[in-house]
């Protein structure tokens, strides 16, 4: 039985003004128009992923990769179609976005860990392990607002590194790390894969996708354009863009 089943999924976002206003609501109601503009981020996407697969999401900016991950997390709901997932999900959509700038690295480890669904006791027990992975011992009591983006990334991934989950969603978060840290993240993700975790990785780094993923999905303007072995799909993508 698949871990992920996505059937005919479409997703649209309201365009332009990001937040509704009463004036627009009242105006729409008075004029009886459904006059809101939308942009389709995903159009009729269907695929399924089996347990233990490693799947890369590739495509240009705005192709729908992140939207798909958000639907799987789930952070939002599809406009049409069905998304079904099984097991415990951990979503690393934007590492460090869950950090609070005023809090120290130490406090943020607890905040981020509990957002990811870890128990406080578990974080306490494995605190040293998290800190060791991040190599941020010296900055634990520094507010995160003073961290560089690379440091935030390291702290964020280090918390996630102790997760045990059935499905791991990773969105482009490795991009700002240095090579050595990225390599360690990938090593950790391989361990998770070997332990049976299904991993979805959205990335612009095609080398990472071919190196890490067994399969890749190519998104283009919200549609699923190709689905197959990572090497072939990456080649398709490169052939198209050059």
């Amino acid at each position, binding site marked *: 039985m698949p871990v992920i089943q996505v059937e005919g999924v479409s997703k649209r976002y309201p365009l332009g003004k990001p937040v*509704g206003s009463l004036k627009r*609501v009242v105006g729409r109601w008075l004029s009886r128009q459904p006059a809101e503009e939308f942009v389709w981020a995903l159009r009729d996407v269907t695929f399924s992923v089996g347990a233990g697969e490693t799947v890369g999401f590739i495509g240009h900016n705005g192709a729908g990769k992140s939207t798909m991950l958000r639907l799987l*997390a789930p952070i939002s709901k599809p406009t049409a179609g069905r998304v079904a997932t099984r097991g415990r999900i951990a*979503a690393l959509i*934007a590492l460090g976005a869950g950090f609070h700038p005023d809090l120290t690295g130490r406090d943020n480890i607890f905040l981020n860990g509990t957002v*990811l669904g870890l128990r406080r006791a578990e974080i306490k027990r494995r605190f040293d392990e998290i800190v060791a992975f991040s190599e941020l011992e010296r900055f634990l009591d520094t507010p995160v607002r003073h961290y560089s983006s690379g440091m935030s990334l390291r702290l964020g991934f280090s918390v996630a590194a102790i997760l045990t989950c059935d499905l791991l969603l990773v969105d482009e978060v490795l991009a700002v790390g240095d090579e050595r840290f990225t390599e360690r993240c990938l090593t950790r993700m391989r361990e998770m894969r070997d332990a049976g975790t299904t991993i979805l990785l959205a990335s612009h780094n095609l080398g990472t996708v071919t190196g890490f993923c067994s399969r890749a999905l190519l998104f283009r303007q919200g549609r699923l354009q190709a689905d197959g072995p990572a090497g072939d799909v990456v080649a398709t993508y490169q052939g198209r863009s050059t």
Partner: protein
Amino acid sequence: MREDLRALVAARDLLYVWTSREFKARYAGSALGVAWALFYPLSLLLVFVAVFSWLLHVPTGGVAAPLFMYCGLAPWLFTNGTIQNSAFAVVANIDLVKNGVFPREVLPLATVLVGFVDFAISAVLLALLLGYYGTSLGAPVLLVPLLIAIQALLTLAVCLFLAGSVVLYRDVRFLVPIGLQFWMYLSPVFYPIELVPSWARPWYMLNPMAALLDAYRDVLLFARWPAWPPLALTAGISLVGLVVAYRYFKRAEWEFADRN
């Protein structure tokens, strides 16, 4: 809704961590820290007593004006302050909402919990005033925890409703302070409900805050049991309101990430 509650219970550690974060954000970093939580109600009390008692001679049922007014002011400030913070609990942390998966009601809920700390601090001042004026308390004072519980449910209901709608409708954030002003003047914060003309009283008592503040005064200042029908009505409104508000919030939360 049962599923939502189960998810909320599962996220109790996050609630704990987030509440202590809110607590630190509120009290750490300012030189006087907790002292502000005392100074604020005290300064308001001064203005209230000066304007409504000395200037306008609002009757206070034979009780010293500072005590009478503070007995309404302290509970009101809990609801008022909590709503002010909670209404923006989700918008202020929209990045967390857009990138994390957790029950979103944790955010407004944490501000309500932190509001209890302010409430406890301002209650100390109330205790001091009660002692200073030599008020004798009776058995009815045992009702205070029940009154606080009803008030907390009511406050949480309003907070959930506002926290959700502020994200979706920008205008609501301007309505929050206006609404709170109206609510305060329409509640017996600095006047006794006896001042409300009797023809208007049934309507007036539909405001759940009216029965609550009146009951606080009954049990704390007059050592008498409160009028039960309005209190029961208020408890009912608060409970139903909370269920409705929670449902609204859980339905609205799927749009939080999409619309920001």
